[in-house]
């Protein structure tokens, strides 16, 4: 038989062979506290918090790394286990800056949670922490080594999932540190600012660079007109910050919450997502028609743009020149909207709510200023920061009524919404390109082969005799696989969507903590649900987009578009010392 019988805390349990003690206990409804363990990562077993007692064994094995055996009798809460666990947690705390009350992760910290659970009230050990400098050099991420518990989750996600390898465990024994390459500042290594490290950190050792104060200041400045845009992925995740079921679609509540925070207008980045599709779709068709560089690759994901600029600069011609929806929005706000509202540039403040930490860097790029003086986007808040800001304001999110976005950047389509999930940009583009090229009505809008969490997905579409081959990749290790194919001339695709983060923006580096693949799937399902819920599901059919072209932009890829909606890239690789 493939099942193993054992007892946990005296209770008979039968689980599949090969199950870890930890998972066997969880199946039986018995919780074992963990710290370094992460359901989507390799078993590290280095924190030793999840130890259990196995009858007949002298040592207390870690439950995450030990498989169940037939006839095993184990205890997860014996006196011996609880006492040893307490000692281990005290040891961790004796090398930790436990200023919990003022910590980023206060009430949201895995170490705090297990310390409380273990009943640590006094630390029997002397604190040995030598306070070190907090690295604030990155525009997106802050690294506080005084909080680090050396679990290695950030190292694994950076190396294995993102394939970027800029953070590593250096040194040994008590001197071991988790550091960027060669112990440099984050800004001096080839970091893509994706922030995935911050989503898996159990404590506040790596977190987003907070811009909440800046936004509070702006919304409370009577002389400022403050507008906000919300990224597609935020509406399916912000609810989690308030204990709502993962995958809850809370678009209307989100709009209401932002209004209550004091924003003058609440707009939707989905609008410029639609605009991106029209521009990018036309760019693709133009490249195909005029023998331009193919495959063309999407440019919405700033972590991805950072990656290719730093690691594959020779392939930059493949990247679409379209700005990301965030920056298209910023550029239109600081030109079209500014004129329309008759505002002075210094009086308009643009905030974005993004699932992303790399967006903070993107907003600071030198190219992202229409007038060369003011930033197109003035502040970027991650989903987590927005959650914190709403809590500061005492807004009970769950109880809010649903409200609608403002005009003119509030009318959106399902195509814009699905930008949030890996494969969504491609699907939105195909919906539009198909109809533009064939002149026919697309009957089945769902491209199922490019949805979901598969690393690299493909599809083919027949466009009036031309078979267009597309690929979708998410997470940078998959992006690297695609880049290697292009480099070796083996990528016979026309169009590739690359998203930096696993699962796309719904799994972004600024999304709520404790994101797992299971949670990603729920957010993805919610994203596609939000798409089908909308009356218009193709970007080129958006009345707001059509109106903008008629009134202001004139035509896709036209002169105004070129100035406002397109950008350029450059080699930003860190050169090795000669």
């Amino acid at each position, binding site marked *: 038989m493939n099942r193993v019988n054992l007892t946990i805390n005296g209770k008979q349990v039968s689980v599949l062979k090969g199950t870890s003690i930890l998972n066997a206990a969880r199946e039986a409804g018995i919780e074992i506290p963990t710290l370094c363990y992460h359901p989507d990562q390799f078993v590290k077993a280095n924190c030793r918090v999840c130890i259990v007692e196995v009858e007949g064994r002298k040592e207390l094995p870690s439950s995450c790394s030990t498989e169940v055996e037939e006839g095993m009798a184990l205890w997860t809460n014996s006196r011996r286990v609880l*006492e040893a666990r307490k*000692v*281990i947690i005290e040891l961790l705390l004796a090398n930790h800056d436990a200023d919990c009350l003022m910590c980023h992760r206060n009430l949201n910290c895995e170490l705090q949670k297990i310390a409380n659970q273990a009943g640590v009230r006094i630390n029997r*050990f002397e604190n*040995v922490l030598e306070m070190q400098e907090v690295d604030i050099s990155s525009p997106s991420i802050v690294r506080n080594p005084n909080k680090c518990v050396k679990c290695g989750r950030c190292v694994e996600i950076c190396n294995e999932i993102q394939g970027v390898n800029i953070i590593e465990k250096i040194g040994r*024994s*008590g001197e*071991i540190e988790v550091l960027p390459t060669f112990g440099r500042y984050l800004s001096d290594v080839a970091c893509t600012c994706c922030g995935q490290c911050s989503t898996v950190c159990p404590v506040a050792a790596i977190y987003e660079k907070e811009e909440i104060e800046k936004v509070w200041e702006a919304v409370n400045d009577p002389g400022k007109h403050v507008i906000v845009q919300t990224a597609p992925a935020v509406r399916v995740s912000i609810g989690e910050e308030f204990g709502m079921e993962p995958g809850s679609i809370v678009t209307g509540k989100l709009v209401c919450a932002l209004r209550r925070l004091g924003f003058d207008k609440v707009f939707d980045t989905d609008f410029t997502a639609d605009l991106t599709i029209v521009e990018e779709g036309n760019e693709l068709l133009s490249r195909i028609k005029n023998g331009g560089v193919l495959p063309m690759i999407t440019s919405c994901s700033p972590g991805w743009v950072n990656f290719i600029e730093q690691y594959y600069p020779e392939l930059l011609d493949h990247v679409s020149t379209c700005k990301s929806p965030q920056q298209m929005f910023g550029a239109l706000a600081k030109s079209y909207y500014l004129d329309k509202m008759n505002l002075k540039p210094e009086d308009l403040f643009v905030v974005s709510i993004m699932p992303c930490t790399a967006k903070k860097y993107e907003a600071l790029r030198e190219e992202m200023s229409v007038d060369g003086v003011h930033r197109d986007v003035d502040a970027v808040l991650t989903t987590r920061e927005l959650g914190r800001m709403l809590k500061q304001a005492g807004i009970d999110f769950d109880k809010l009524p649903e409200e609608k976005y403002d005009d003119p950047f509030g009318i959106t389509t399902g195509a814009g919404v699905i930008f949030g999930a890996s494969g969504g940009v491609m699907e939105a583009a195909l919906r539009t390109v198909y109809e533009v090229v064939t002149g026919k009505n697309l009957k089945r809008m769902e491209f199922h082969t490019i949805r979901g969490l598969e690393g690299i997905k493909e599809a083919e579409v027949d466009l009036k005799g031309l078979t267009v081959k597309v690929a979708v990749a998410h997470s940078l290790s998959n992006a690297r696989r695609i880049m290697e194919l292009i480099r070796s001339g083996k990528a016979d695709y026309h169009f590739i969507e690359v998203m930096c983060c696993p699962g796309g923006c719904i799994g972004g580096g600024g999304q709520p903590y404790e994101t797992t693949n299971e949670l990603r799937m729920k957010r993805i399902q919610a994203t596609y649900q939000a798409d089908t819920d909308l009356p218009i599901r193709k970007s080129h059919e958006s009345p707001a987009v059509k109106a903008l072209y008629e009134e202001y932009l004139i035509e896709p890829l036209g002169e105004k578009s070129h100035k406002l909606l397109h950008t350029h890239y450059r080699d930003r690789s860190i050169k090795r010392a000669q």
Partner: protein
Amino acid sequence: MSAENRFLKNIVLTKRCEKINPESIESYVNAGGYEALKKAVTMEPQQVVDEVKASALRGRGGAGFPTGIKMEAVLKTEVFPKYLVCNADEGEPGNFKDKFLMENDPHQLLEGMIICAYAMGMEKGYIYIRGEYIEPIRILKKAIKHARGKGFLGKGILKKDFSFDIEVRSGAGSYICGEEFALVESLEGKAGRPRNKPPYPTISGIYNKPTQINNVETFSNIPFIILEGAESFKGIGTKSSSGTRLISLSGNVLKRGVYEVEFGITLKQIVYDIGGGVPGGRKIKMVQLGGASGPLIPETMLDLELDYDRLSENNLTIGSGAVIVIDERYDVIEILRLIMKFFKHESCGKCTPCREGIRQILRILYKFGSNSATQNDLKLLRTLSNVMSETAFCGLGQAAPTALFTTMEYFAHEYTSRIKKPGVILKAV
């Protein structure tokens, strides 16, 4: 080494040492070298493994796991390629017997490895040797070259359908790299940190392939077992511990050195009859067995026999064979602080109990050293060393507090006598 001493049994491992020229393969061959290999290749691989199993040879690296059972596990794993690794890291302070073997009879080690490779179907072997062993590295590399020249290594060994070669690799001088998985990581070019067990290296070692890892002394026993047979080997030593053991004798004894002794000898005989006792007629304060990670015992326990079972009954082990004599001039707490400082330096930092525990132990020991410890400190020291040995990720952290445990048991007064008398310090109002 004085051959007339009745306790010395240079019959298995050291019979050629200091008699042959270690840098000449001819010298080894003339002394009967590579005869065991010639015999082995006429046997079925399973027969070779059975012979080692029957000999009851146990690993000489420290853990004492039966070598034949390890070989059987690798033989039965149908995954290729398989790798053979000789652990010549010898990082445990107080041990220098592998160095002695490699410098004096390198071909015996190579022959043992080649026989194992034949038995388990391996084409590639590594000798992972500590970087500080410059002379052994040179001698081994030369020996490997000579063995290739004579057709004992390389393609078609002894004109059979059997190819095997050995590469000498060294790490960056880390103690943890003697731990088998940290060694594997280091061999793969990574930082030496242990991996999860199971799976054990016999199933998933180098590049996740089946890997047999043995100590220098273990491999060096193989030629004797094959040539003379398991029964002859079992005839040496005791019922539960067959063969001989190399002892690295050091510390406050007159005659320090490497000695081959038969199991069954008492620790007292090792220290007094072989080592000549303590210089200056001083008394023995304590003896550490195995090395820094081993127990510290008082002189009254030296009547114990060198035997896996006898020692285990007393919760002791001889580990990799070091016997370190410390005389009455030394203070237990001071010695412990030196030992724990060593582990603080050598912990890889991966797991909490070892990384954070050792430095806390040192802090508490400091209090004992300065007579400022309290009853709570003693309690905490006991709790912490227990937790470390029960929960550390690998053998390093589990064994690091061994000296602490044993001294708390056998030298309890050294701790209690230093505890600060209870009193209350009042602050001026």
